[in-house]
């Protein structure tokens, strides 16, 4: 791999909440345009890892970290604009959380807050984002309706569209399909695969099959440590670590 393809570099990252250590000296690179799946049982540090990438742990006063995270070569724990970072590193949460506004205003929310006034630009961006999230055809006739009236799967795709609208480089997914039915899950996965190359995506999931379906590479986390990182194919057919094999074959987790 040549260096220019590396989007995120993590060097010896440890993180803890108060006395509880959540992540132990993690080092890995994420390549530009790939989907990196992160699997592991609960409390393995997956979500902590994800939240280190957009500094979402900052809101927790007990959080502390060591090590370095760089995106495009910039140390994100250095003196940077956190709001700009979060704009560039989008996040989709486990539970679909639409804001109590119309479908349209949900998709336009980020743009408006980032000071975009031009309604034509907003309209264009909203439509593009909704199309990209495979939601446009379902909601184009009820853009003014309350977002809360959408189904759970539609709401989650609206959340994805809302994230896309602020034009991120990187999208983090924190178990985005854990509350969804198989059809909605398939649509989200389809969108993710479609986004390959355009965005760098990291998918944290409890669903090993999902990780296998969409990930270029897969990392296996266990108790705050990364056990193994390899091409998805390799991980799911011939993992090099016994614990990985035990987890994906369902012996624990």
């Amino acid at each position, binding site marked *: 791999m040549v260096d220019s393809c590396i989007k995120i570099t993590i060097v010896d990252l440890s993180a803890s909440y108060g006395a509880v250590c959540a992540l132990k000296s993690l080092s890995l690179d994420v390549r530009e345009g790939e989907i990196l799946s992160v699997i592991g049982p609960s409390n393995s540090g997956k979500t902590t890892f994800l939240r280190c990438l957009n500094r979402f742990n900052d809101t927790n006063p007990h959080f502390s970290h060591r090590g370095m995270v760089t995106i*495009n070569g*910039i140390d*994100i724990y250095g*003196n*940077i*604009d956190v709001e*700009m*970072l979060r704009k*560039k590193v989008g996040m989709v949460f486990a539970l679909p959380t639409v804001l109590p506004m119309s479908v349209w205003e949900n998709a336009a929310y980020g743009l408006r807050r980032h*000071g975009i006034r031009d309604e034509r630009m907003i309209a264009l961006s909203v439509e593009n984002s909704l199309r990209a999230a495979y939601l446009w055809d379902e909601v184009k006739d009820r853009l003014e309706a309350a977002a809360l009236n959408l189904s759970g799967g539609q709401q989650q795709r609206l959340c994805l569209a809302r994230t896309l609208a602020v034009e991120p480089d990187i999208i983090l997914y924190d178990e985005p399909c854990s509350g969804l039915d198989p059809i909605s899950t398939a649509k989200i996965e389809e969108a993710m695969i479609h986004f390959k190359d355009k965005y760098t995506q990291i998918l944290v999931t409890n669903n090993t099959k999902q990780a296998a379906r969409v990930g270029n590479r897969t990392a296996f986390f266990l108790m705050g440590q990364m056990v193994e990182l390899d091409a998805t194919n390799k991980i799911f057919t011939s993992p090099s670590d016994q614990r990985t094999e035990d987890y994906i074959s369902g012996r624990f987790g």
Partner: protein
Amino acid sequence: MLERHWTWHRVKEFLIEKCIYLSGVTSIVIVALIFIFLAKEGFALFKTVGVGEFLLGIKWYPISHPAQFGILPLIIGSLVVTIGATLIAVPIGVASAVYISEVASGKIKEVLKSGIEVLAAIPSVVLGFIGMMTLVPWVKAVFNLPTGLTAFSGALMLGFMAMPTIVSIAEDALNAVPKRYKEAALALGATRWQAIWRVVFPAASSGIVAAVMLGIGRVIGETMAVMMITGNAARIPTTIFEPVRTLTATIAAEMGETVRGSDHYSALFAIGIVLFIITFMINLIADIAVHHKAK
């Protein structure tokens, strides 16, 4: 790409957040000032009058020579009225709360609730006035007394005035009991009353304690109505059918005539401190009762 820039937007936000911070600090300062000012004005009294003499003295003659500042009659006045009001308000108030929360339904529930909300909104001076015009003559006639301005009248009125506090907080506590408790009891064949009495009521008990405490706090702090109804005689009563004077009424009635900085002025502030401490403790107990439930 990620450097921080100072835009006009950012500056505005910075200023707004500073305003918020400043407001928070101001409120904290005000809270502190309340303690400090009451203490400063009130403690001046204790240079000339001992604390024991103040709290346990039975003579409140603030303008005689020499003046006497014993607030025991006032404490007893407040106590008598408060106990009387509590005895009236607690059983009736809690029973109403149970009825509104557990038995009444639909429209009736809404009507009863708004009736109680209206009562909470009526200014105490209006209730005091109505009490003077209707309750006082009634007490005088029924009990054949020389005056209707008695501790008993005050207790009746204050019991009534404490209802909204007791009913609404007790009702919140009862509503907070998970429905499934009651349903489980009903499923086992209990009657609705058995489910309420044996299951819902005990589960809500700490909230009800809080309701009672806050109701008592309301009664002790009430000023205008009690001043207009209880007759304002600063001596220790032998029965509840005699006039009494409460701590609050003393402050309200006498502060207008004091000389600033005089012993009398300080004594009224010292009464304010006593009231402050009593009500603060009561609220604290109520708060603890509520949090006890939360665990």
